């Protein structure tokens, strides 16, 4: 298996429901792989030995499938010249539909608009493990380039044959094949017309980054027009003939069991169907108002065991260790220990013990989980916004106990996910209701359901013990992370004696992947602690970090951010502070500098008691290096987005819960970053054309929280060691700047 981070807990869960099986009376149909491609030229990218370590093109979902196995991608050039690429990746706003098209168009020397992508359809595209972990750019883009390059070589072969010339006198430019000697040119479609040519990609040379013409440029989002006109159909916008609307009646608490059920009244409502299957209760109706009335009319009682609340969360996590999830298959839960911590502490002039905490937070994708399900002669088709179409397909197979080839999952470009849409609850729920209704059913989670029945970024406790000499050399470093997760747990600093360990815990709330995983929590703890050590020895935070760090790529981004920010050059002012942080994750190197103000509450209306001061982030400078940059504007856009999203988790986002219930499941109660929170965002891209491209949607999120914490410390002398840092302002006294 490819390496999956340990804290992607949701991937280890089974389907949300398991229903009673129904005997299928249908033969397995073996679909003709080529039927849907038509004539022309087909390039198959087979997996080689090296690629077998990758995530696409194989997996359990291939069984029972008529497609040639062991394929990573395929490309078709139709007789009309249309270039279509098939990939199992999904588009959730990270813009890979654009960047992957850039990769293929680059190799085919064609305009980006001539390349269409069919994405994430389990009947039409190759298997893919899922779109997460910033893997599309490092893993899928190179495959796309290989396919594109092979198609280019095949077109050259065809043209050389046609013109009876050497291959060397044929080239591609501007979406056409040209005869360099005669100046003649021919379209891709004309060349492939009448062909049914299938080739396997065999290592044609891809264009090196130094020679990129299209990649490395800021091509606009390819389907932006559909989004600004409302034409794009997200899952929640799809309409099927005779479609009904469905909703689930939710239990009163997590892990509750249904003890009493009475649907007499609801069942008598016109056009309403109530469905019960074990603890699953739902209804379908022609419209949302009737549906709400029906759900409200179903009488249920539930029983649940008492469950922990926020107040006891951190003690609970430390007191309830569990075995590592995922058995022995996961990666190591921490970095191996180096040296001897106790000896390192003895060599230190200053020692520091500190504990950091992180609350659960929610993804809040603006499009809630949604699915449209349709049963047609025993075959189930589900449209749903998920990052794991084949995972959802497996869930459906398991939930309904039907053969693999009777399930198709299609993922329309989705209204964001941030790691929150790896599971298939809405798909299973819609499918169960559609089966009962014998009509297509659309099910859109309400915002409240989205806040309650999805999964959260793990809460956690991080303890750090360290020691430093008076001239600023760190001699010992021990980090213990309880529940948050092991991503980026290892220190990037050069410390003789260090150990970092992850401890799995029993989690009161369902938890799983979130943009950047635990790298945010681990960086928050580590980089806050680094600042305290710098303060302990009276060193500048930048100088202190550079003194303890050899990694040239990390030094480069730290220096780049500090230069852009003009670190150390500003005069200190009352109620203002600056802070920095840096880190490494998923092959990306990031440094963040921030400037903040402590401001009187902007609370409107009558103040009964003076409100505590608030933290306003004025300016954020991010320097980021992820190898060769594929699309600079989209990369900047991802960094803007990471910074904005990070502000929420840093300052005010937290899921409040008690006894199996979420207490703030509405946007009016759970604040997300808005225009008023927007700082001046400046970005330095360190473009390393000599290095492979790493994914970039996640890592820029990790530096903001610690940089802000360090700036609060700089401004107030108060160290805040819990995320969020200022949900209701901070406990400090504003320095009066008024002078008589």
């Amino acid at each position, binding site marked *: 298996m490819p390496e999956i981070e340990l804290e992607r807990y949701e991937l280890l869960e089974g389907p949300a429901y398991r229903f009673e099986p129904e005997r299928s009376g249908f033969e397995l149909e073996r679909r003709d792989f080529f039927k849907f491609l038509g004539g022309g030229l087909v390039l198959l990218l087979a997996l080689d030995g090296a690629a077998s370590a990758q995530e696409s093109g194989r997996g359990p979902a291939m069984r029972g499938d008529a497609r040639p196995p062991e394929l990573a991608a395929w490309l078709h050039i139709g007789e009309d010249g249309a270039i279509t690429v098939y990939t199992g990746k999904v588009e959730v*706003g990270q813009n890979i539909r654009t960047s992957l098209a850039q990769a293929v168009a680059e190799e085919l020397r064609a305009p980006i608009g001539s390349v269409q992508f069919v994405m994430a359809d389990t009947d039409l595209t190759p298997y893919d493990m899922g779109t997460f972990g910033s893997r599309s750019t490092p893993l899928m883009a190179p495959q796309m380039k290989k396919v594109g390059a092979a198609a280019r070589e095949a077109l050259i072969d065809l043209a050389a044959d046609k013109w009876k010339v050497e291959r060397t006198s044929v080239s591609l430019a501007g979406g056409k094949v040209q005869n360099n000697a005669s100046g003649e040119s021919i379209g891709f479609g004309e060349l492939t017309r009448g062909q049914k040519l299938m080739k396997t990609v065999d290592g044609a040379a891809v264009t090196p980054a130094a020679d990129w013409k299209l990649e490395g440029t800021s091509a606009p989002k390819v389907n932006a027009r559909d989004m600004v006109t409302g034409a794009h159909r997200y899952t929640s916008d799809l309409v099927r003939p005779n479609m009904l609307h469905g909703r689930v009646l939710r239990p009163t608490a997590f892990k509750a069991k249904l003890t009493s059920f009475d649907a007499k009244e609801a069942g008598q409502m016109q056009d309403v169907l109530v469905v019960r299957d074990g603890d699953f209760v739902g209804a379908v109706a022609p419209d949302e108002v009737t549906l709400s009335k029906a759900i409200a009319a179903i009488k249920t009682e539930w029983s649940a065991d008492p469950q922990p609340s926020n107040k006891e969360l951190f003690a609970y996590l430390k007191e309830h260790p569990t075995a590592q999830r995922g058995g022995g298959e996961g990666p190591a839960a921490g970095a191996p220990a180096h040296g001897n911590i106790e000896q390192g502490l003895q060599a230190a002039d200053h020692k520091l013990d500190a504990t950091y905490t992180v609350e659960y937070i929610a993804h809040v994708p603006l499009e809630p989980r949604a699915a449209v399900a349709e049963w047609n002669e025993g075959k189930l088709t589900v449209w749903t916004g998920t990052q794991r179409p084949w995972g959802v397909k497996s869930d459906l197979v398991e939930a309904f106990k039907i053969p693999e080839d009777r399930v198709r999952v299609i993922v329309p470009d989705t209204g964001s996910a941030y790691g929150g849409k790896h599971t298939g609850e809405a798909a299973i729920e819609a499918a169960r209701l559609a089966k009962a209704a014998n009509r297509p059913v659309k099910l859109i989670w309400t915002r409240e359901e989205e806040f309650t029945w999805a999964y959260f970024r793990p809460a956690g406790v991080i303890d750090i013990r360290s020691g430093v000499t008076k001239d600023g050399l760190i001699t010992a470093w021990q980090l213990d992370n309880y529940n948050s997760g092991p991503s980026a747990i290892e220190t990037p600093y050069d410390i003789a004696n260090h150990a970092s360990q992850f401890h799995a815990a029993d989690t009161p709330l369902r938890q799983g992947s979130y943009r950047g995983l635990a790298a945010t929590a681990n960086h928050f703890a580590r980089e806050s602690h680094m600042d305290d050590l710098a303060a302990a020895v009276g060193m500048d935070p930048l100088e202190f970090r550079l003194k303890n760090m050899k990694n040239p790529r990390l030094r480069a981004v730290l220096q780049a951010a500090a230069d852009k920010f003009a670190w150390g050059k500003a005069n200190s002012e009352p109620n203002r502070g600056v802070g920095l942080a840096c880190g490494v994750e998923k092959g990306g190197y990031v440094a963040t500098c921030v400037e903040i103000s402590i401001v009187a509450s902007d609370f409107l209306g009558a103040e009964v008691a003076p409100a505590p001061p608030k933290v306003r982030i004025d300016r954020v400078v991010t320097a980021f290096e992820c190898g060769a940059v594929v699309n600079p504007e989209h990369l900047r856009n991802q960094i803007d987005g990471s910074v904005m999203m990070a502000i929420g988790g840093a300052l005010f986002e937290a899921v409040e819960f008690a006894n199996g219930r979420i207490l703030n499941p509405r946007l009016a109660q759970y604040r997300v970053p808005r225009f008023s929170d927007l700082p001046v965002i400046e970005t330095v891209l360190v473009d390393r054309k000599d290095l492979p491209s790493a994914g970039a949607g996640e890592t820029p999120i990790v530096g903001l929280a610690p940089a802000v914490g360090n700036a609060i410390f700089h401004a107030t002398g108060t160290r805040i060691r819990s995320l969020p840092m200022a949900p209701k302002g901070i406990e400090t006294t504003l320095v009066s700047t008024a002078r008589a």
Partner: protein
Amino acid sequence: MELVVNQKRYRLVVDPARMLLWVLRDELELTGTKYGCGEGQCGACTVLIEGAPVRSCITLASAAAGKEITTIEGLAQDGKLHPLQEAFIQADALQCGYCTPGMILSSVGLLKKTPQPSEPEIRRALHGNVCRCGTYPRIIAAVQSAAVQMAAGQNSGAPHA
């Protein structure tokens, strides 16, 4: 009831308890107007009623009857995008695009009232619209750029002014 949406008249028989959002989406199949929260907090459901931005998820369809409603589908004229739509594309002011229709319509409402808004005025006008992808700086740039375009268009007598 009669709804006037994007200059078309529709006669409908709907439950008086239904919100405009769902009538637009499910009865008229104008799905560019999005559900985000159901309580007027995120702005994804924004439409224009008589030119002013309104949260359709908390507006009864009956309250909008007979009034001029504009949804995102009604903004482009004869295939020509509104300057704000064009500006959102040019400024890369979207990632997943789910908030975009609401953002654009709130911005149309702003520019109608305040043709040359300052940055704080843009922030204030769009404060009720959430972009979870965090494209806020690009949205501000898009609104500023569209304001310039529209002012230029007005001088030359082009549509959308």
